[in-house]
């Protein structure tokens, strides 16, 4: 059990039904309880349709649900910048804004207007995702991997409590994906930020996660364990094989 002061996110009895009272009624989430502690990198694995994305969207405040989501003990129902979402879709950047403006716009909305501060933050986060010098590019001039880097930079610039990531690398080619995994790993160890990362990919979960949960249907948590493998994790790391087997078995049972 996580101690109270170290707990950043608490989900209590979350249930979500799609198309309630119709023939297509579907219980996506049933009584999910989950606590996440500060600076944790939580990877959520699960088969398609188990409710991973719905869980994340409920935390982000995009869906209505029963139960409650508490951030630092306070209930949250609507979207807010303490929980910033990085989507899978490459088109999450606004095509009408340059990279720089895409990063600065959310900051301006949230009350940062000092030009120097805006520029400093932009420079800082772009350096973190290794895209320095791309400030003036429009999204259509970037590759898919670069767009996802900007999306991560944009989230980091807001300095949120939690970054929610819904399979952000799923549509990337294998090489770019590996590259972005190791960069996200580096960023996550340097940042004071909690990550909740959804993926279908066991390797990705083991490489990135400090804690991994596996969901079954209705969001039932069937595995919840700390990832104790020494970082950086490679398939040759001690314990990798066993962990992979356990996750694989749980996913395909």
């Amino acid at each position: 059990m996580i101690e109270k002061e170290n707990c950043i996110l608490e989900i209590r009895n979350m249930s979500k039904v799609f198309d309630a009272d119709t023939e297509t009624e579907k219980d996506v989430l049933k009584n999910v309880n989950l606590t996440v502690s500060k600076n944790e990198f939580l990877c959520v694995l699960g088969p398609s349709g188990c409710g991973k994305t719905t869980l994340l969207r409920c935390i982000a405040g995009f869906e209505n649900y029963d139960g409650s989501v508490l951030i630092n003990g306070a209930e949250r129902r609507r979207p807010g910048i303490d929980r910033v979402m990085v989507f899978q879709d490459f088109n999450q950047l606004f095509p009408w804004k340059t990279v720089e403006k895409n990063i600065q716009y959310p900051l301006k909305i949230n009350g940062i207007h000092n030009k120097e501060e805006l520029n400093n933050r932009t420079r800082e986060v772009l350096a973190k995702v290794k895209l320095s010098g791309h400030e003036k590019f429009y999204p259509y001039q970037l590759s898919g991997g670069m767009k996802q880097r900007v999306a991560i930079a944009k989230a980091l610039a807001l300095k949120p409590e939690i970054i929610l990531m819904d399979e952000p690398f799923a549509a990337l080619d294998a090489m770019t994906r590996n590259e972005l995994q190791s960069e996200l790993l580096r960023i996550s160890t340097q940042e004071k930020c909690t990550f909740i990362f959804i993926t279908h990919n066991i390797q990705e979960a083991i490489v990135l996660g400090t804690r991994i949960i596996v969901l079954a249907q209705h969001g039932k948590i069937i595995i919840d364990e700390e990832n104790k493998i020494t970082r950086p994790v490679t398939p040759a790391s001690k314990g990798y094989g066993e962990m992979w087997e356990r996750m694989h078995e749980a996913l395909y049972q």
Partner: protein
Amino acid sequence: MEQKKRSLQAITARVLFIAAIMCIWEYVAKSGMMGRNSALIFPSLEAIGFAFIKNFTSGFAGASLWIYIGNSMKLLFEGLLIGIVLAFVLSGLSMMSSIFYDICNLVISVCDLLPGVALLPVVIIIFGVKPGVIVFLVVHAVLWPMARNVLDGFLAIPNIYIEAGMNMGLKGASLLFGVYLPAATSYIVSGLKVGWARAWRGLISAEMIFGVASCPGIGLFINQMRTNMNNAEMYATLIVIIIIGLLVQYGVLSTIEKCTVKKWGISK
């Protein structure tokens, strides 16, 4: 290089086409093959060119064509401005309330089918013969196609932009201005194109059917040329109407496109 060749080809083809038309015109005019009225139906190019200059220098009834153009433009832009603002207000409100959306949709569908000129008798009965009537018709011409386009644009916005906007704390009006409007730009621009074309035609028709003496415009000018059988001047005014239309099309609308959707890589 390939592209340069292509555009050179396009320009050459167009210039040759226009030159050919002018040659045929001049041949018909000079040969007098249209009989007695030949000079009226096909005034020679020199006559049209001379009339073109005369339109601007001496004009009609002591006022040069510039004054008529100025009056038309004043009414046109007044109408365009009101129409565009109203279109944004209607479509913005439609996005906020579903009841408003249903009603708005009906009103747009009905009004879009009504030619402005058909409304003219009713409008004149209500307002009398005033410049305001022409402004009203311009508003009518631009508002409905524009509102339809903006609304379609709002409905076609990918959900991801809206969620990304909500994610950074936008809601209500800030979401409308921050996400809906820019994301619908390509629809808004095509709405502007349709709206502008309709407004321009509506304006000239209204002015031709009834000219407002206190604010005479191009339509009235061309009608007076017709009444006085000044056919060369009539053709010359048609050319002016075409030139103004092209100037707005390429000067204003294309520039807007270049600075927005083309720059953002949304449209080629």
